[in-house]
């Protein structure tokens, strides 16, 4: 499947090139064919035709950030969760943030925002302060693990933008979090 797609892509690209060139006299030699593993430009060319087809990914792509959207990259960074009315980094959050830090240090070009959130139980205004504290606690922890502070912005949403809309401890725990939004790669 992958092979045939690639072959189709190259064919389409060639056709496109021929069509594009047919109206003009050939002025310059065609660009050197790109090496096979770097298939990005070709894939982009056929994408509009083949939208329902999932994007082909390879081992090489999975390890690269160039082909991934900001939201995909954001999803690769796992959120840290907090206790009620607390902004301390818990044991489980330490492990999560350590993995995040490892990834972030691997891709030093990635810039990101840490969002601090709270559950719905405190007041709106206090929760904005609490969310600010959570975002900054996560930021400080990442910095302590060697992530450059200049890559990190933080913002608090308090209880304004909950992830889970329920009104029980399950939803509340999901909402007491610091999560990542990649803004540049």
């Amino acid at each position, binding site marked *: 499947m992958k092979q045939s797609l690639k072959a189709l892509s190259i064919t389409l690209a060639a056709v496109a090139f021929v069509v594009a060139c047919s109206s003009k006299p050939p002025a310059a030699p065609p660009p050197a064919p790109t090496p096979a593993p770097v298939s990005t430009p070709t894939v982009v060319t056929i994408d509009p035709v083949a939208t329902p087809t999932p994007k082909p990914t390879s081992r090489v792509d999975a390890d690269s950030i160039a082909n991934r959207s900001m939201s995909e990259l954001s999803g690769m960074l796992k959120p840290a969760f907090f206790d009620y009315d607390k902004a301390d980094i818990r044991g489980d959050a330490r492990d999560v943030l350590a993995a995040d830090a490892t990834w972030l240090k691997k891709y030093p070009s990635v810039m990101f925002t840490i969002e601090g959130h709270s559950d719905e139980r405190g007041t*709106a205004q206090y929760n904005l302060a609490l969310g600010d504290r959570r975002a900054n606690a996560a930021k400080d922890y990442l910095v302590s693990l060697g992530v450059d502070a200049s890559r990190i912005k933080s*913002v608090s949403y308090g209880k304004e933008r909950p992830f889970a809309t329920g009104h029980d401890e399950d939803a509340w725990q999901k909402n007491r979090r610091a999560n990542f939004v990649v803004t540049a790669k």
Partner: protein
Amino acid sequence: MKGVRGIGALLAAAALLSGAPLLGQAPRPVPTLSGVAQPADIYTTITGPTGARRPLAIPMTIAPLQPELQTKAVDPFYTTLSDDLAGSGVFVVADPALYPKGLRPPQNREEGDAWKATSAQFLLDTHLSPDGGNVVVEAMLWDLGTIKSILHKTYTGEPRAARRIAHTLASDLVRQFTGKPGPFLTRIAFSSDRDEARVKEVYTMDFDGENQRRITSSRTLSLAPDWSPDGTKLVYQSYEKDTPGLWLIGKDGADKRQIPVPTQLNASPSFSPDGKTIAFCGSVRGNTEIFTVQTDGSGLKRLTENAAIDSTPRWSPNGRELAFTSNRQGTPQIFMMDLEGANVRRVTLAGNWNDEAAFSPDGGRLAFACRNEGDFQICVMDLLSGRTVQISSGPGAHEAPTWSPDGSKIAWDVQRGSSTQIAVGNADGSGTARIVTSSGNNYSPSWVKTLE
């Protein structure tokens, strides 16, 4: 016209009155704005629990039988008038089902007694009639004990101003008995998510939920508005430039501008009583502190310096102190300090979470969101005695109280299930609070600070 029957009495009453409030008009000490510890005389006058409320009959407004006039002017007028007076804390409205037929106005003691049998001591007789493109409302207040009219007023306006006429009359009636107009012509600002998912815009409305109007078009979070003391503009927190900032906007949505500050978060802005300074919750390196800044961004000053969370400052009416929330002693509690950040003292001692303080207009009382177990409720503390009463009840989180400019009412937001709406209740907890919004979810009310 029936009103003619009482014209002699009216003239006599008018001569007697000559502009002075009739009842309780003996000069009372006006509560001063200068001391937190001033006993609030109005508190006991308006909202005292023991028989201060005047029983009042409000029969349906008399008007020509015209269906359009009825639906467009008479019904809104009468409903608004009844709601205002029933919720005023000054009157108790006698049950309309008991009202006698006719006898308006009562001409003798027997007819007066027929009205008094409904428990009323006063009768508010209103007539509405078209006059060109306008409507004219004639209102007479009768003392059923003396069978004398003690107030006679005429109001004119377009039919669509019927509610406003009713608010004006209700306000005049409250002033007749308390010496102070009622809050019925004032507006409340709040934030609402009705327009778009993940967006809150600042709105304003009449205190009873009518005439709602969107003020901001931020298409992001615009939160926690607070009125300038003169009621011409609002300060609020908005995420318009990615990082949340302090913004000012005119009450009609014009003249929006950001107050430049170097801090982060920039939540909970509060106007100083002189309108020159904003107190707010700013974050520096992940620690929220209380700051003040001039409305042009100059003169930034940090008032707290504490590793704990400090948030939600609110200016006292005398301009010399700020209430704020801090968890520096464990749970979030309300503290006060002066404008140098000195003389910090804890105000709330009971409960495991007290937050979002709001001073009464006379500075004598503090409303706040209070919680021990269960949901937040709205509490009011008398600052002189420390006596605290809970004025809200029922399930759901009750938060963000704000006082009406006359100190008689408090608005807050209440979450029931997945719906959050603005409620308006009496500051002494009497009567039933009314939910006045319904479109989307509505939060963080701020009541305008002047009575027009």
